[in-house]
């Protein structure tokens, strides 16, 4: 906690007896958090992770935690939010720097006003996501609690054949409240493929409050795969803020398999014309797991395309929520925006809340949304069983078939194979 007190805004009274972290938790009366009560998942006694708890042993453990069958090139490691150059392999064309935070920094986001770069000046801060930020003080807390954040700059010639793997390791002793913040700057014409994972090296039941900010400049292209497969019963609050300049394209693809709580806030602003954005999610939940996908894509100018597709399977007593918003600003003509949310309920004890939201203030647009919540198709089940396939195996096949859509569409073979094996393993478990 050293060095933290003085950077706080006076309005946060950390001397008071209750745990001040809890003051930053949104209540379920907050519309954006209606279906996820953080207080139910995170213990009152939660305390903060001390900064920079790294040693060689931990680094070794972190390195070994990653499936080494995958290529060792292009892997960068963070431990407790600190970049580990010793064990990382930084690809050509990527520069990792640190933004220097001023003492009284109160920035919620580091994205600058134009969405073109990052800085720590409050008066040059991007205000596109203000509505959400005001309701979700956790992002602010993340800014207070992270050291000077890292900026990853991908230069114009950056083009990745092999995905860049980002591993966020956390030493996490005694169930700490962990932070991480990364700023991604994709320079003009860069093509970036990232695969991100969280590794908990410490005890069960931790909380990871992760924030990623993206500035995608003209003609840049981003593919970002997040694999949420934490076996240590931790809570993950993953927030992504992305501003796209003209002709850029992004593809955020989230795969949620294991975790006590997984909350994904993905907010994309299309601020230049002819942008494309896909925000996709595939999840397989069981036990008492909870997943909350909160997505907003804002079309602030015309001629952009976006697509949201979320497919989830709920087994056991798992629960979830999908809240997807398409916002089309007045004058953002020729917008094409789609949203689809399909939920397969395998168990009668599971539940899901789906909330599509369309706010359209332009008249020359094509927008659609669809949502399905259903059980296993009895006809299909009988058909498979009539061919000699056992009920359990038939259900597994139908679940795999349901989830496969977004996996088979992955172009990168390495990521595709990893995911299809992960889902197969989890499905059969």
């Amino acid at each position, binding site marked *: 906690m050293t060095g933290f007190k003085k950077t706080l805004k006076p309005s946060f009274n950390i001397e008071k007896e209750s745990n001040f972290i809890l003051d930053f938790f949104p209540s379920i009366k907050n519309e954006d958090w209606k279906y996820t009560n953080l207080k139910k998942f995170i213990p009152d006694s939660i305390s903060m992770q001390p900064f920079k708890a790294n040693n060689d042993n931990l680094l070794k453990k972190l390195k070994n935690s990653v499936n080494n069958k995958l290529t060792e090139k292009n892997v960068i490691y963070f431990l407790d939010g600190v970049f580990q150059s010793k064990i990382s392999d930084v690809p050509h064309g990527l520069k990792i720097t640190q933004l220097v935070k001023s003492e009284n920094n109160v920035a919620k986001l580091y994205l600058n006003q134009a969405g073109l770069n990052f800085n720590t000046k409050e008066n040059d801060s991007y205000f596109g996501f203000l509505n959400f930020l005001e309701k979700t003080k956790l992002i602010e807390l993340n800014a207070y609690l992270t050291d000077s954040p890292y900026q990853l700059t991908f230069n114009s010639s950056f083009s990745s054949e092999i995905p860049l793997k980002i591993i966020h390791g956390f030493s996490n002793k005694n169930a700490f409240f962990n932070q991480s913040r990364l700023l991604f700057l994709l320079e003009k014409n860069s093509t970036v493929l990232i695969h991100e994972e969280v590794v908990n090296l410490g005890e069960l039941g931790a909380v990871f409050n992760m924030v990623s900010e993206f500035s995608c400049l003209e003609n840049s292209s981003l593919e970002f795969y997040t694999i949420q497969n934490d076996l240590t019963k931790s809570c993950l609050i993953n927030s992504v803020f992305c501003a796209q300049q003209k002709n850029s394209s992004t593809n955020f693809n989230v795969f949620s398999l294991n975790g006590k709580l997984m909350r994904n806030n993905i907010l994309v602003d299309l601020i230049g014309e002819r942008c494309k954005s896909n925000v996709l999610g595939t999840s397989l939940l069981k036990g008492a797991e909870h997943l909350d996908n909160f997505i907003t894509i804002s079309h602030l100018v015309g001629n952009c395309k976006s697509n949201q597709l979320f497919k989830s399977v709920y087994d056991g007593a798992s629960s979830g929520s999908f809240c997807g918003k398409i916002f089309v600003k007045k004058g953002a003509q020729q917008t094409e925006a789609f949203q689809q949310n399909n939920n397969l309920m395998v168990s009668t004890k599971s539940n899901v809340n789906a909330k599509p939201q369309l706010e359209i203030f332009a008249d020359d647009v094509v927008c659609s949304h669809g949502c399905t919540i259903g059980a296993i*198709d*009895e*006809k*299909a089940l*009988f*058909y*498979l*069983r*009539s*061919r*000699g*396939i*056992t*009920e359990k*195996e*038939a259900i597994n*096949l*139908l679940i*795999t*078939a*349901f*989830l*496969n*859509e977004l996996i088979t569409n992955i172009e990168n073979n390495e990521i595709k194979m990893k995911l299809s094996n992960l889902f197969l393993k989890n499905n059969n478990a």
Partner: protein
Amino acid sequence: MLKIKNLNVSTESNISILKNLNIDVKKGEVHAIMGPNGSGKSTMASVIAGDPKYVIKKGDINFLNKNLIDLDPNERAALGLFLSFQYPVEIPGISLNNFIKTALNQKQKALNLKPLSAKHILEKIKKNAEILKIDLDFIKRSVNVGFSGGEKKRAEIFQMLMLQPRLSILDETDSGLDIDALKIVAKGVNTLRNNESSFIIITHYQRLLDYIKPDFVHVLNDGKIIKSGGPEIAKMLEEKGYDWI
């Protein structure tokens, strides 16, 4: 091989469909079942295959000296029973190839046999695809998704040839087929026909029976068999309709 005795079947909402149905299919025989719409032909086929949506009120279904009533659909399939569906179900995301491999190996497992090698399965696929004039790319497509009516039926017969059942029930496999497709389907059935395997063919038309010669023809009406005989019955029905009976 298959012996159905006094079978009474209702829907879940207690509408009686099959009423004291009796049928006896011996090894190597081909039985054709005809009958007006709503007479219970498809229900009979589904009940033999084990569709859980029907309730068996009374009666027995014996297959190879085992009572089928307490067996799961997959257990019945493992014994050698096959149903070609009147309306094959579309299953997006599972390729026909993957589906058939899983089915074959599940059957092997149920019979305590070793899984078949990929090479062996591939050879079998190629052989049967050739008989049915199926393109190998077709097998990579999702099961029945976007298949034409004819393709769906051909895929059913393909599965039948792959699984080599002892008793196959073809539920209106000829409906909606053009004359060439009909010949191909008949060829598939005749390939499998031997002294050990039997067929129940449900159809509305005499035409299919020109290509697959039945040993017996039964007429089903209002849930029971009202007439049985040789192939001549089908010819009479074609000429005179069901009023003739």
